[in-house]
């Protein structure tokens, strides 16, 4: 497309301006997290001050942050693992051995991902209460694996469909059993897709709040529940330290999201947009 160079420069300038405006809240949070508490609140605000790591030290050691971080890590990793253990074989079956019902099943699986959590929270709470799963890792791992299962099946199946069936047949003629077929032939080809799927599961689980706040009280609560406690009179921490805790909380997810940019759209739309 040919355009006047000037209008191109204006559009580029506008793009930068809008980006700065939209990214600014995050930038401000990160900057605030490195300011001494007194300087975080001075008027007029200072953009750059001699940075300090004190807020992070305090947030990590003088608050229960690390306990919640540990809960989040355990729950997120095991829930993702469980979703993979159940989802990858399901994707395999539906990619290579489709039946008349496969299409309908895939759509049904997708629809469960869109079920409002508020529509099932009451029975989940009552069941968990009765089987003593409230406020446990196990309970959270099971519900989050259920949340991630559709994502795993949809993404992994679409990656499997791109693998030529002939390669699998050749491996079988060479006498490969199911496990060998998977580890030697499929896994190397699926690795990038698998990595993207794992990262997306990680992002959704890490950020989840509704189920966490209603099904845990303290022992198994993830970071989202801890951060939400800042709503009441600044919680345990004040602005700079709160910024440090918040920054540390979003950093892993932002990194994961930036790393999966190429598959992000397919993942967010369950493959409806590639």
């Amino acid at each position, binding site marked *: 497309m040919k355009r006047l160079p000037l209008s191109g420069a204006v559009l580029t300038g506008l793009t930068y301006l809008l980006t700065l405006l939209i990214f600014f809240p995050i930038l*401000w949070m990160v900057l605030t997290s490195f300011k001494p508490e007194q300087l975080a609140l001075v008027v007029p*605000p200072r953009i750059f001050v001699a940075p300090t790591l004190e807020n992070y030290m305090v947030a990590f050691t003088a608050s229960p942050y690390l306990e919640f971080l540990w809960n989040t890590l355990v729950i997120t990793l095991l829930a993702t693992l469980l979703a993979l253990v159940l989802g990858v074989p399901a994707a395999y079956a539906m990619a290579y051995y489709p039946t008349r019902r496969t299409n309908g099943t895939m759509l049904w699986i997708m629809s469960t991902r869109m079920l409002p959590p508020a*529509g099932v929270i009451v029975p989940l709470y009552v069941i968990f209460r009765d089987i003593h799963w409230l406020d446990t890792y196990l309970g959270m791992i099971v519900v989050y694996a259920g949340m991630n299962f559709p994502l795993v099946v949809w993404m992994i199946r679409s990656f499997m469909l791109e693998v030529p069936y002939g390669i699998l047949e050749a491996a079988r003629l060479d006498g490969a059993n199911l496990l060998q077929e998977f580890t030697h032939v499929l896994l190397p080809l699926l690795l990038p897709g698998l990595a993207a799927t794992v990262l997306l599961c990680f992002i959704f689980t890490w950020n989840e709040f509704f189920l966490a706040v209603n099904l845990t009280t303290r022992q198994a609560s993830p970071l989202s529940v801890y*951060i939400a406690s800042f709503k009441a009179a600044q919680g345990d921490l004040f602005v700079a330290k709160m*910024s440090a805790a918040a920054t540390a909380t979003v950093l892993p997810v932002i990194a994961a*999201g930036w790393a999966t*940019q190429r598959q992000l759209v397919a993942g967010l739309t369950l493959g*409806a947009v590639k």
Partner: protein
Amino acid sequence: MAKQSAHEGRKWLSAPGILFLVIVTQIPFVLTLYYSLRGWNLLRPDSDVFVGLRNFSRILSNREFYTVLANTVVLTLSVVVITLVLGMILALLLNRPFPGRGLVRTLLISPFLIMPVVTAVLWKNILLDPVFGLSAYVVSLLGLPAIDLIAQYPMQTIILIVSWQWTPFVMLILLAGLQSMPESILEAASLDGAGGLTMFRYMILPHLQRFIEIALLLETIFILNVFGVIFVTTSGGPGIATTNLPYQIFLEAFSRWNVGRASAYGVFAVILANILVLIFLRVIGSQSEQEA
């Protein structure tokens, strides 16, 4: 696709996963239906009796329900419209070569990646706090009297925060749509003298129609579930001014412990979502037919 019958049994590899999904999603939903017909309050164990449709009739005859429904619709529709306009502008801007495009794209998707609860704390306590927030300073610079946005304009503030969060989602999908457009068509049109607006109206918009539909439907389905931002910023208040359907269910279930009423609200939420999901499936269904 040639298959060896010896391996036909492998189609059952999907069974454990599907069974698991039925247990964690469908059984709770059936129980939601069941509880919605009971008068059960967790604080009064003896109240667990069959009451027919009384929970539903109580809800429907209560004005609260219509306020909650209106709040849900206002929040969802406003965010959808705002993010569509902003997302479209950003997608168009990003669909042209300029220095630093990768970085700009990366920075722009960040609001969507951030934990919604952090987003809420960030806006409430770090940006919009009437005393300590950055906005207080900006307002004083402009010589305006200090305002407490969240207290004075609670719904508008929530719409602002949720829109900030969801704009990248729409942008990403529309950008994917724009990038799937053959550039030669646009070049031919511009050689024929078509201006920017004409091209947008008659070539870009029709091509993007499916992408817009998908973005809007998915966004609506997920924004109906907004909870964390409301929980942190307004707790559904003042009164019930910012209480949406999920927040109302949360209040019925976990502050009033009214299992029956909360489940009846849950049935409404599921019906609403299912209507949207069916439309969504039709849209992507007709899309794959077109591709075939």
